């Protein structure tokens, strides 16, 4: 078995003591970051990327560390959802629906254990899915030429805009903004400056890490200043933690179904973990029917979104690794990491750097086991983290972001640029313009342009070449469909509103 041999190679890379140590650190940090309201997978991973470089880690080690952080945040997000009714990160939104009611009924410990086990099932099984799917998709990706890649990038923007946002025009605009920013700098093929305004700092283009840290971390500081910090008093008490075997047995089917749904949602470009948890919850609610008591503390309502979002997190790695097209905000950040490490994702990655890919996959398995141990018996430790007040947390996030960018580029201009992106990110968020397409645009802009120009070189300027293969046509149809379909479906699929709680309405 080829796959098993590859996995063995991966484990031989990932099980060295130092790498294992990094994985454990990453899991620990990730759970904390996920649990803290206001810090989630994308901004948590974003502020740690510059530091991972400053540490001088090699490609595999940096990937192992940050993937562990990523998986850790997916586990940690549920803690504040359940105990505070505030999602620790966006994908954990659905977990508040039943998690907080369970906690109010004095079953906080049970909810934490069930969601922890659901998270484990979701991400462990989806990592197995990744092992099976990724090489298959990588072999299909060999058939992709520049025309197909151009359509694929378009598909990513369209589905991201169509599925994940409320207003198509705003999502498309966000993508244009990102693509426009990516144009700044020297043109790849002619070497002529574009949109630099004669500024030498801009001729290298805008570093996507600067934009990412600004948009995801610094903008959060402005949000907190506006709201004067959020009330994060623990509203429920957490008793002794025991394992609710009966609930675990009853929710096993839920976890399996939700894992399947979440994985598929994750693999689709542009959808990601938030959609995975949403779809898993809604599907489970429909499946159980009237015998469930969803929204009032049904354990299945805790298991479904957690299995769903963790499975989606694993699924989102599939298109990111095999095609270089991220499926969510966090995988966009992971793509930024790969690009900074000079690793180009895509089918060649599996051939040229098997140690990196399989080491990464092996470390996902390890991270999951470590996270299960950390998040079930040791969950009380992380609950303490919720007591960190916003007025300590936010200055810390700011300072870590600054030092990260400073040590990465050493340039004042980049730090000012980061603040600019922070302010821009704040305004965009207030105007309900999604920021993930902006980041994706900055990351993929020059790749997308290159694909278009290479396609035109091949066809000698004939634009119909873009629609010349069945794969390309399929991708165009999917892109247009993905962008337009939500316009018609939006009225029918309303998001459920989390239970309101009087103590939370103070800001």
């Amino acid at each position, binding site marked *: 078995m080829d796959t098993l041999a590859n996995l063995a190679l991966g484990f031989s890379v990932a099980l060295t003591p130092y790498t294992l140590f990094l994985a454990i650190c990453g899991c620990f940090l990730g759970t904390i970051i996920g649990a803290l309201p206001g810090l989630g997978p994308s901004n948590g991973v974003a502020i740690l990327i510059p530091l991972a470089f*400053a*540490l*001088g880690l090699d490609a595999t080690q940096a990937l192992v560390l940050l993937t562990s952080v990523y998986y850790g945040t997916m586990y940690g997000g549920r803690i504040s959802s359940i105990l505070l009714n505030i999602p620790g990160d966006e994908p954990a939104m659905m977990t508040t629906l039943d998690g907080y009611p369970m906690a109010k009924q004095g079953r906080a410990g049970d909810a934490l254990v069930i969601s922890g086990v659901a998270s484990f099932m979701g991400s462990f099984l989806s990592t197995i899915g990744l092992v099976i799917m990724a090489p298959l998709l990588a072999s299909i990706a060999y058939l992709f030429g520049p025309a197909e890649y151009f359509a694929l990038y378009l598909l990513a923007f369209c589905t991201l805009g169509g599925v994940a946002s*409320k*207003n198509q*025009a*705003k999502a*498309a*605009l966000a993508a*244009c*903004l990102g693509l*426009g920013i990516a*144009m700044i700098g020297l*043109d790849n*093929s*002619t*070497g*002529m400056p*574009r*949109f630099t305004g004669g500024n030498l700092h801009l001729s290298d283009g805008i570093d996507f890490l600067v934009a990412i840290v600004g948009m995801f971390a*610094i903008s959060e*500081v*402005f949000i*907190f*200043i*506006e709201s*004067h*910090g959020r009330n994060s008093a623990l509203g429920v008490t957490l008793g002794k933690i025991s394992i609710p075997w009966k609930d675990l047995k009853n929710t096993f089917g839920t976890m399996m179904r939700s894992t399947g749904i979440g994985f598929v949602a994750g693999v689709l470009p542009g959808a990601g973990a938030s959609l995975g948890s949403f779809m898993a919850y809604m599907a489970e609610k429909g499946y159980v029917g009237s015998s469930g008591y969803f929204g009032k503390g049904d354990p299945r309502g805790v298991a479904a979104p957690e299995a769903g979002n963790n499975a989606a997190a694993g699924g989102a790695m599939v298109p990111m690794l095999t095609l270089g097209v991220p499926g969510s905000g966090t995988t966009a950040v992971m793509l930024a990491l790969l690009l900074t490490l000079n690793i180009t994702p895509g089918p060649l990655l599996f051939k040229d750097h098997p140690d990196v890919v399989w080491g990464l996959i092996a470390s996902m398995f390890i991270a999951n086991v470590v996270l299960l141990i950390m998040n079930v018996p040791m969950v009380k430790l992380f609950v303490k983290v919720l007591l960190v*007040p*916003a*007025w*300590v947390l*936010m*200055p*810390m996030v*700011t*300072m*870590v972001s*600054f*030092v990260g960018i*400073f*040590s990465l580029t050493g340039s*004042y201009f980049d*730090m*000012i640029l*980061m*603040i600019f992106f*922070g*302010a821009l990110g*704040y305004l965009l968020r*207030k*105007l*309900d313009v999604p920021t993930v397409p902006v980041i994706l645009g900055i990351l993929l802009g020059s790749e997308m*342009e290159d694909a*278009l*120009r290479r396609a*035109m*070189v091949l066809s*000698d*300027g004939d634009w119909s070449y873009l629609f010349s293969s069945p794969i390309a046509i399929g991708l165009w149809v999917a892109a247009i469909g993905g962008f337009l379909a939500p316009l018609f479906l939006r009225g029918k699929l309303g998001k459920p509103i989390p239970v309101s709680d009087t103590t939370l309405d103070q800001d």
Partner: protein
Amino acid sequence: MSSDRIFGLVVVMGALAFFAGALQIQTSFLSDPVGPRVFPMLIAASALLCGLVLIAKPDAEPEWPALAAWGNMAIALVVLVSYALLIGPMGFLTSTALAAAGVSYLIEKNARTAALTGLGLSLVLFVIFKYGLGLGLFAFPRAWMG
């Protein structure tokens, strides 16, 4: 006028400016069939379209913060920009303590906790970054260090 309409207008103007900028890009005689101008023009055209849609069909007004909050955010902007400019000349410890205290005070109006946060964070982060992660930070102004 709603915020979305103003935003749409800004987008339209920005898109036109971007298009004009794309026309100014120098091409070389060795260029490919598409050249360096077409893709930026496509982006500008799509953005223009989005801007027009926003003007025609604005969303509901977002909840803008009160004037005082805008003031606080403006101060935060000044604090962050000064921090970016001063972290080199002033050294890590002083500049970080001041900036962290500033941000903390803006979130929770409490001078004592803000000062403690500033001091604590600058010391703890310095130790972590300098000795834990081995970054080349200067504790004090470089002039003092000889």
